[in-house]
């Protein structure tokens, strides 16, 4: 693996923590040093526990320390999940046996094993979610504590499902742990980068086209449902967005754009910008590897690389994280990718659903209008 300048994406350990800490009824223990503990804690804003191991525990074994920490957490009724960081992962200790009496969920997800999605997926697979034909409604997946839009996405999709009279079954990963054992047989997504693989996937909720198709499928699957209020609201949203974007285009040229995000949000952003503003999507820098995007795209792992791409493609608008914001020069910017430091965010705004598209487009238009610049 080549060296990487100022890496932009968290490690697998953080991904595993983002998955497990989303479940009520799980006590998450980061088995490693204090440095490995503090980062996910500050990033995820979720209660995590740590073993804070020191040198002598690496040399002589960490069993005593693990027992001390796990002992303090037992008796709460919570399932204890231990996530191993890099050093404990290679020590070869049989942690499962050491902690046999506690029924610990052991997630071997060291930082060197991959990126955040790797850890998230592994942790979720170890929870072994089960579907139950008797479970009512539809699951929502793609919810990840790392995602700055997860609260808004969840709120918005719950709203739309309620509007269509479809109950919400299990939310992956923001729900009671016990509900993972009895999930519904169908799932819709909010962010495919963090999909659960549980049940039959009926589609996503990013962007109007995808949302319409998903709710049409939901209408066909759930006979008691009435998706027409959602589809009606969706049409009104599109109409209103087109009207506002038309007005923008009377005065401004379509923006050229470079996007840095996970594949799912990047595709949503690119399609929305192209659809509503005839934007020129010059390049997509993907945080994660796999993608079948029909835009020029490649994986971008470091800030220097991102900066060079911004300079080479010279867009009017940059979408990304606050890392990209720091190197965007005088170009308009909109944050859609974690981390989003340096801005106060209190309201749970979505990218998914009807309000997600509205929020995204209004932010794009405001950013472009607030940052007019002369093309060289």
């Amino acid at each position, binding site marked *: 693996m080549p060296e990487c300048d100022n890496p932009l994406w968290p490690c697998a350990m953080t991904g595993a923590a983002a998955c497990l800490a989303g479940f009520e009824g799980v006590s998450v223990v980061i088995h490693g040093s204090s440095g490995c503990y503090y980062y996910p804690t500050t990033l995820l804003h979720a209660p995590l526990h740590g073993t804070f191991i020191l040198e002598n525990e690496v040399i002589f074994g960490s069993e005593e320390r693990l027992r001390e920490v796990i002992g303090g957490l037992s008796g709460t009724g919570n399932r204890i999940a231990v996530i191993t960081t890099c050093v404990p992962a290679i020590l070869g200790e049989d942690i499962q046996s050491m902690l046999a009496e506690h029924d610990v969920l052991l997630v071997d997800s060291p930082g*060197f094993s991959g990126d955040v999605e790797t850890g998230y997926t592994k942790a979720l697979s170890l929870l072994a979610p089960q579907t139950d034909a008797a479970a009512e409604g539809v699951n929502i997946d793609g919810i990840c504590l790392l995602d700055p839009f997860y609260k808004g996405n969840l709120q918005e999709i719950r709203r739309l499902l309620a509007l269509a009279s479809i109950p919400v079954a299990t939310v992956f990963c923001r729900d009671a742990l016990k509900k993972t054992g009895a999930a519904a047989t169908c799932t819709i997504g909010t962010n495919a980068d963090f999909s659960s693989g549980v049940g039959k996937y009926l589609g996503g909720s990013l962007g109007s086209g995808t949302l319409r198709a998903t709710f049409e499928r939901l209408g066909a699957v759930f006979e008691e449902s009435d998706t027409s209020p959602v589809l009606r609201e969706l049409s009104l949203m599109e109409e209103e967005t087109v009207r506002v974007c038309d007005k923008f285009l009377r005065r401004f040229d379509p923006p050229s754009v470079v996007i840095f995000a996970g594949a799912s949000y990047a595709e949503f952003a690119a399609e929305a910008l192209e659809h509503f503003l005839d934007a020129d999507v010059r390049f997509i820098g993907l945080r994660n590897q796999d993608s079948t995007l029909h835009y020029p795209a490649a994986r971008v792992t470091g800030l220097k690389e991102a900066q060079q791409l911004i300079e080479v493609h010279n867009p009017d608008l940059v979408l990304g994280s606050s890392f990209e914001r720091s190197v965007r020069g005088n170009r308009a910017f909109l944050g859609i990718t974690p981390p989003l430091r340096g801005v106060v965010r209190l309201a749970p705004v979505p990218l998914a659903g009807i309000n997600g598209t509205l929020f995204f487009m209004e932010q794009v238009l405001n950013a472009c209008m607030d940052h007019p610049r002369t093309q060289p």
Partner: protein
Amino acid sequence: MNLRPSPTPISRSGGCTLTGALSVTTQVRGAASIIHGPKGCAHHNFSLFHATLPDNDQAVLPDLVSSALGECDIIFGGEDALTRTIRSVCSRDVSTVFVLSTCIVATIGDDVEAVCGRDWPVPVIPVPTAGFFGGTFQDGVNNALIALADAGAPAPTRPCVNIIGEKNLEYEVDENYTEVVRLLTLLGLPVGIRFVRHLSPDDMPALGAAQVSILRDPSLVPVGDHLRERFGTPYIPSFPTGLSDTLAFIRSVAAACRIDPKRALEIEQALQAEILADFADIGDTEGVFCGPVMDTGSSRAAREAADALHIRVSSNREAHPLPVHPVVGTSGVRRMLHRWRRAIHA
């Protein structure tokens, strides 16, 4: 002999050595810091600096380069990856390269010093870090300062004072420095270098030339000892933390530099009296100290200020909450008193 002493809670929560070292190495202009380990370790720290440096008006983010170790490197050793990374970084326009190791690298036993010791076109300085293997955040700071000090050479003494180990992630780092400069100016002493804050490699010869080093706080004593051994420079163990401590600080620096402190002390005492008079309106009240950091120095400075203003300090939760934070010098106490006034008049 107890081979397995129980670690104290403080040592467990003392932070990451790597982060401490980076808070120093990223302040050397034109230098690059290589983090030898998985990408996640570099990302964690880059994200932290990204979040904190703008608060200190530093818009330019540091260059952190990860050797990006993967599973194969962990199994077969990461020295090739480090060599490749150093070669790549040396080909850029850099003055110095720091190599900081991580927990996993210390565990697999990469010989980082040997790789750094090869013939590179620019100085490649290994800093012993290795996360929890290296100790705490403060150990990382100290190790980086000592490693960098070893790159300096003894020089003829000149009338100046060096500032050692400023807390670069501290919110008020530059204001605290300004206060120390103000006090030194009362004694007619200029600052030689800030070791290490915005340091240019060209400034390094001044490291061994100061009459005295002033440490940011006593946790840097190992660094002070190292500088004394290497350059013969005596040190003052801490920035001043309260009113009387500020006067004692002036006396100590004056003694170390063989200067008469009388005039400086008169000016400072007059300033302190003026400040206390300005805050007389909050006197004769009852307050309770509060704040996330309640170290001995801060508590002592707060107590002294409260006593001077006749504020009764109690544990009564109904009393006015008086925020306490680490203060430096007379100006630091004045800022704390402004916060007290706001709390008392709220």
